[in-house]
């Protein structure tokens, strides 16, 4: 899932300075699951905005709404017109939602309410961790299901660097060394051969270095 976190309040107050009427628009997709931009977070942000403005002695009208998703055009349909009534729409969806509103709704000013951070898993309530880099050419079958691209500080392909000590990464003792994990896993799975073979230099185009990525499925195109 896409993990996001709300932008600092000061930043949001700054970007809405002088505005009289705004819409805080949530999303019930990933950001709702990771507690960054669902219904609950929408009302929290709206109250905070009103309070913040009240403290500085300015008036603001804040309206709240949450869509099922912001990354499908049909859900954004009502916003095309209603969005124009506001000085700005603060989208609490991931960056995809913000972009998509900007693309679809001409004349609507859209602002990001969250920072979109990574693709991660929910380890426990309140803790998320990066698990995938969306690099576009998965090697997990060779690495025991653990991703060296997303989870190694140097995205190494051929084993741990000299800084791996006691299963920890050299950059921070709180970060586990994913290559230690891969080594343990492959040894356990009796796939040591994978550790001996040289992984060739990657093609980074699927990871986005070949330009903005796009996917087309002819059979589904209407």
């Amino acid at each position, binding site marked *: 899932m896409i993990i996001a976190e709300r932008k600092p309040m000061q930043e949001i107050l700054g970007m809405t300075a002088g505005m009289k009427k705004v819409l805080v628009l949530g999303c019930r997709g990933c950001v709702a699951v990771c507690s960054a931009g669902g219904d609950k977070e929408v009302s929290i942000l709206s109250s905070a905005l009103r309070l913040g403005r009240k403290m500085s002695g300015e008036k603001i009208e804040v309206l709240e709404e949450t869509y099922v998703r912001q990354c499908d055009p049909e859900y954004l349909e009502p916003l095309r017109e209603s969005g124009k009534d506001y000085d700005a729409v603060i989208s609490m969806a991931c960056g995809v939602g913000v972009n998509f509103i900007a693309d679809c709704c001409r004349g609507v000013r859209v602002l990001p309410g969250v920072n979109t951070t990574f693709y991660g898993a929910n380890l426990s309530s309140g803790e998320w961790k990066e698990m995938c880099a969306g690099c576009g050419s998965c090697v997990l079958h060779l690495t025991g299901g653990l991703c060296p691209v997303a989870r190694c500080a140097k995205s*190494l392909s051929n084993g741990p660097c000299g800084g*791996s000590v006691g299963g920890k990464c050299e*950059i921070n003792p709180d970060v586990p060394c994913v290559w230690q994990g891969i080594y343990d896993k492959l040894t356990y799975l009796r796939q040591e051969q994978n550790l001996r073979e040289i992984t060739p230099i990657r093609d980074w185009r699927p990871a986005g270095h070949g330009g903005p990525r796009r996917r087309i499925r002819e059979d589904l195109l209407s």
Partner: protein
Amino acid sequence: MIAGSNLEYVLSSGEFAVTGELGPPKNGDFDVVREKARILRGHVDAVNITDCQTAIVRMSSLAAGLIAMAEGVEPVMQMTCRDRNRIGMQSDILGAAALGIKNLLCLTGDHQKFGNHPHAKGVFDMDSIQLLGMVKDMRDGKRFQCGEVIKNYEPRLFLGAAANPFADPFEYRPVRLAKKVDAGASFIQTQIIYNVDKFARFMEMVRDLGLHEKVYILAGVTPPKSLGMARYMKKFVPGLDVTDDVIKRLQDASDQREEGINICVDIINRVREIPGVAGVHVMAIEWEEAVADIVSRAGLSARPEPRGIEPCLISSGTIEEVVSKAEEQIRAELEKQVDQARTEAAASRDLVTKEKEKAAGEISELKSQLDRLKDMADREEIKQKQLAEELAKTRAALEKARGVSEAGMVCKSIVEPQGVAAEAAPVSEIVSGEALSLREQRALQSINKGLEALRKILGLTEDQLEALKSFFEAEFLLHMGEGQPAAAASAVPEPPRVQIAEPVPELEEAVEPAAEEVAAAEAEEMSVEAAIEEEAPPAGVAEEPMPAGIPPCPPELSPDEWKRKWVVRLTARGNVLLHKREVQEAESAFRQALKIDPGYEKARTGLERAGKREAVPEVPEEKPASPEAEKEVAPAVEVEELPEAPVPESEAAPPEEKKPEAKRAASLAVEAEGVEISTLELAEEAATLMERAGSIPQDMIMEPASGVIQEVVIGDGEKALTVGGSSALPFHLFEGDMPNSPRIAYEILDMEPEEWPEPLMKYYSDVASDPVAWAKKCVEEYGAEAICMSLVSTDPNGVDRPAGEAARVAQSVVDGVDVPVILWGCGNADKDTETLREVTNLTGSKKVCIGPPTDVNYRTLGATAMAFQLPVVAATPIDVNLAKQLNILLENLGMSLNQILMDPSIGAAGYGLEYTYSVMERIRLAALTQQDDKLQVPFICNLGREVWKAKECRLPSDPLMGDQERRGIMMEAVTASTLLLAGGELMVMRHPKAVSLTESLIRGMM
């Protein structure tokens, strides 16, 4: 051969290889790399040039490698994957190969998080193994990574990689090493080895995989420079296994550096025994000097003659070397020619002298001949006179006879005398003048003969002879023979002049073609000519004895200069004495001066004035000497520039008589290398201010203070220091009292200083690693009255030495010297509290002053100080109110104000000194004139650390900025002087010469 590098030659020959490491500088300084390369040259077979190690920006490995190569050191270029993608890397690889680089070490690179740009985007397009594969494929497959063919000149590089036997998973490490070998590595350099046992286990696994047959493994070693470094590596460098044994060996060592080298040599000796180890990689990080020592002690100093180094850069050093060699050759050649010319000249001069003597002989012979002729002529004259007389007598007798008797008888008798008369005729002619021609002719004949002889001897031309001849004739006619000696004397020196002139053009001819070859030789030529021109005179002058009463002339001055200097000095002294109404002495000084130089106007007027018993008019008291003398003998503050010369002016006892100072002066003189700041002495002020003020009413210049500064006693026993107590502005002795003169404490650190510049460090380098020895040196050799020990090693952001350990070091310093010790914390409030509490627990109430309590930890530190009745240093950011507030807080705590020294925060000259000055002055004015009793506390000024971190003290000597040491000393002394004038009572300084200068200022002012 893969690439034909020296390293490859050495390794493939089976020789045990030694490689070194060279970290390029964090700037663009060519010379840094060159110097490091020169230090390593000859001791190693190749040198790794690191590629921005620990992700800190440095000069590129390729550029630094070229500089090293130009110095004859083979580089191993390092390349990391952190900063470049495959396009940048392949481009640099092609460039490196083109420029003659033959070794490449392929690394993944340290993560950018560790460097000075942690916000940078790490590239990591590939990892080290993939990099090895890529370069190998470029070399052997002649293909770029994309598959495109490299048509010509594929990069021929001897490839290396790194391995860390101490990282995890341990069992996987040899396997990963195998991957590197498969990918293309020909040699491996390992991580630093301290745990030799673990490395041996690693090597066993490596051998099991047969890798030792496929790749040369160089064991990485590093001499630990200090215990601190070893601990740091153990604690903070992931993947480095520093054993407890190493830590213990360093801990027990009296000389940690020495022990560090020993440890390194021991490790080399042990790893050499492990099968499969092909060499060592010595990484003496920022300690390149140690490599030679390590290599030689390990018995590896005989390195094979380097092969395969083909520098494309020629360093200016090499050019200089070649040029200087050529210059030397030409100079030798020139000197030979000059010597030859000189001997020829000398020979011809000898010849001339001989001929001169010969000529003189001839001339004297001629002269005697002439004299003889003259005598002959004289004799003839006398004879003729006699004859004439006889004739006259005969005539008279004849007349008589004629008158008396017959003519016949007479006629007969006349016939005889007539013959006489006929003969006598020429005689009468001579007398009348015409007859002179006879004598003249004879004389001239002789002269001509003589001249002819001269001509032959001297080789004169006909014309010259003719001229000489006519000259002689004229002379002769004019002076009737007497002029001859004069003429001869003036004529003879002429020919030698012609002769002497000849050697010079010859010499010039010899010198000129050489001069065209090397421009530098021109100067030499000129000096040679000059030398010939003034060949003889200087020797004569030098031997001239000195007039009585002048000390021997120092070698750097000529006797005349020295005489003049001495006269000026004597006169200045006379003026000073005269001013002090010591007329007799003044007179004798003037007389002495006049004796040496009777024409010296100033001495004469001085003497006259002394006669009239009047003081030096006009010229103010501070300038007793004449303006001219000022240059030689600075009047008020006399800086003695000629150390050997006595100091006649100084009224105070000369420094040699004071024992500790003499000792210090001696030791400073020994250490001073080219820096001529010796002890200065202030001339005593002759007249009091009141005298000088003359008729100005007293209340206009006097502003007596109503407050008194507290007296604070530091230390106990005989050597205790009392500071403060003054009731007047600093040195305003006419307004009030200053019972205790300001004092100076020497600053020492409790660990080896890392950033002290060399001109300062050289005084302490022998003791820097041992605080006790350091303190003792300050006291015993430099005469320190107090020691200020900075506990920098306790800084949690630095070495973070535990409080207990630091306290023990501090205690041994306190016990080791008998002077008071100020213990100055690292500035971290919590840590200082902990450390100083530990210290006081150990030292009790003994002679210690602690600090600095700040507004954060004043409670705890103050309580500690109160418990042992110790004085404290109260430090505040530079501000009157903050200083006062901390004093109040400490007083509220129960401390007495006479236990507090204020540290107002110091700025060095050029770094905020004026701000410090004005705040200190305001504090002092408030204390003295506004009875602000909370500010009536002495100042302590910790200025050494501020001064010596200033850029001006760190820049090396250059023609614009002058000598670095002199500059630093002056910076420190000037800062101290200013702070003294602002009211500072206790200075904390570093450089012994700056201290000595400042002390003499204090002595002069008190």
